């Protein structure tokens, strides 16, 4: 399932440096663009090769960059929040469909970024503060989430679209022993009947699964692969 995405990362400040490293770890191809040559020097030192000096105000330059590199995702990770907002707007006007991810440090900026059209916004401060909360109050949960999300690469989350005619189509959630039989844990689903909202299974409502619903499962890579095979989803 790991396909290599080509990600255009803007900026190479404190945030972008960490993001770039983690993206590279996950075998993505990272293209770094910044106006600041010093930043790019740091990036070069960290082992990144695809570096570009770009003026974010120059639309032509940005368009060339994206078309030349066949970019799949855009990451706005300047330490300066305003630049991220500006970039989000620019890209949404240039390439409507290209997913834009941006970081921010406050609720206010998050709102602006969403207005500007960013598809995903990461509020870094909220993430850090809540992480801190879990570390001191519920260390075991923090450990578990770390393990599942970051440390243990063999555990993955997966979104599976239920294909028409598969053995899940038309079944009730309660009737299927996800964790016992298939060794995957069903966290929730996006039920087409109930609107495109993510629902946790622990609500206790017995959902009927239909073709087209998206199941969110977590499990070992192997088990998920097997599960998908059984469902008839292409691996």
């Amino acid at each position: 399932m790991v396909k290599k995405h080509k990600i255009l990362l803007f900026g190479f400040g404190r945030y972008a440096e960490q993001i770039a490293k983690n993206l590279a770890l996950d075998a993505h191809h990272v293209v770094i663009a910044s106006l600041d040559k010093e930043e790019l020097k740091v990036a070069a030192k960290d082992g990144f090769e695809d570096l570009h000096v770009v003026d974010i105000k120059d639309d032509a330059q940005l368009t060339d960059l994206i078309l030349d590199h066949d970019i799949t995702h855009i990451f706005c990770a300047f330490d300066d929040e305003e630049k991220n907002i500006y970039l989000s707007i620019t890209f949404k006007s240039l390439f409507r469909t290209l997913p834009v991810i941006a970081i921010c440090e406050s609720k206010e900026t998050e709102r602006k970024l969403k207005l500007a059209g960013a598809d995903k916004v990461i509020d870094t401060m909220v993430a850090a503060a809540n992480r801190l909360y879990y570390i001191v109050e519920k260390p075991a949960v923090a450990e578990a989430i770390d393990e599942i999300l970051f440390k243990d690469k063999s555990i993955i989350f997966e979104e599976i679209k239920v294909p028409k005619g598969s053995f899940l189509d038309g079944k009730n959630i309660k009737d299927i022993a996800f964790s016992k039989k298939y060794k995957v844990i069903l966290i929730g689903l996006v039920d087409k009947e109930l609107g495109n909202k993510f629902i946790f299974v622990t609500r206790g409502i017995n959902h009927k699964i239909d073709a087209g619903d998206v199941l969110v499962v977590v499990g070992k890579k192997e088990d998920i692969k097997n599960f998908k095979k059984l469902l008839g989803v292409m691996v």
Partner: protein
Amino acid sequence: MRFAQFLVDLAFLIDNSLRYQRIKRFVKNLLENDDYPYKRYFDYFMIFLILSSVVIIIEEVKTPISKWLYYYDVYFVTGVFIVEYLLRLWVYNDVHKIIILEYEESLFLERPFDTKRVVKEIIKKKLEYIFSPLAIIDLLAILPSYRELRILRIFVLFRVFKLLRYSQNITHFFQVLASKKIELFTLLMLVAFTILVSGISIYVFEEQHNPHINTLYDAFYWALVTISTVGYGDIAPVTHEGRTITMIIILVGVGLISFATSIIVSAFSEKLNEIRENRIVHTAKRLDNYYVICGFSHMAQLLAKRFKREGIDFLIIDNDANVVERALAEGYLAICEDATQADAFRHINFNSVKAVMALTQTDMHNIYICLNVRSFSKECFIISNAVDNNSHKKLKLAGADYIISPYITAGFFAAKIIDEPIAIEAIKDILLARKNALCEQVEVIKGSFLEGKKIKDIDFDRYKLILLGIVKMEESAPKEKFYHKFIFNPDEEHRLEVGDILIVMGYSVSIANFKSQVVGSSLRHGKKA
């Protein structure tokens, strides 16, 4: 000479007696040390005595009271008051130290031991206490029990005053007023002078004409009533001269009143911060298991919000008064101190602090804070924010147990958000506890129904929970840093042991229900055994 020898021997005997010292220290703590945990109970007890005796005395005015109440008031309450008075007199200072000091001095200077001087010194010290305002109130509060003299009833008031001792707030009030001693004294002099002059004049002018003014006492009474702008009107001037004086002192009175008000108001506004800080430190002292957050940065604000929502206690320390003001406005406990200075932590008892968090925006400050906290407590868990990656090592050296960096956290999430966007959304919802779906840890307690069970025997579906995994505790590791082995989606046959921690996911009600069942079953088990 024999007497002097006896005094010295006695003094040394007392000085060497550990038991005496211990008892005295206990009494002193009970009476005077605000931080002593049992003082509060003593205070409550005394407040109860005072209130009950005041009620009895008031009741007595109209109806005869029962014999038992009378005995309770006269013997028990008064008895306790007398004992308290004597104890306070006793712990006020150490008499034997005066004797020993004089003895040592006399040896050193090779002169005879001066008994007279010692006795004089002792009496002087004790009188010093006896004439302190609070001691006088204590003494007067004992008097109302002597019912034969009706005038002594007035001293019931002093029983109420005695409450002062046991209430922090009122003590603060007087401290504030005490800070304006000079101004208040000036005001008092001014009032006394005006009353004197106007009282005498009205007496001179009206004594013959006004049927209400017969003595100088009447005149002074009238002057005070007029000057305070109360003006009962029971005594009113009848002559032209008298009315002229009245007009003048009414004007003076308005001036004096505004003067008094301004003094008190300014005293309060000056001292308000100090008092508030005092109160906050006091409240913090009473907390148990709380967090200390140094630096009210953006991250700290978000954390504080979360803590507040979860009902967890914390204290914020920041050196910027405006920031502290903002924190206080949010309803948090916050004090304005520089956390890099030793002074900031002098009131904090690190035994009841769960963790200290250095969350300022600069690494240098965080490092100082870590060092500072470490100098107070070796065991306290310290978490620090790190801006620069190079600082991690330094922070660890400075004593931080855990380092949080918004940059690194952002990096983790950023990488995942591309591959597993829905997962991140789900995890985000869980972590922020937004949709009421939570991730919670449940410990397998000894004796609970979880102990020794296999995973397949626990019907998580019935509890509407999902079991994500189990965290196994490593026994050798220290409590704060254990959690080494995480087993994801454990095997059906996996057997739970005491100390294992289940990581479950579900709605808050389901989790609360499950937890209470676990705790309940362990209690039941305990009872049977």
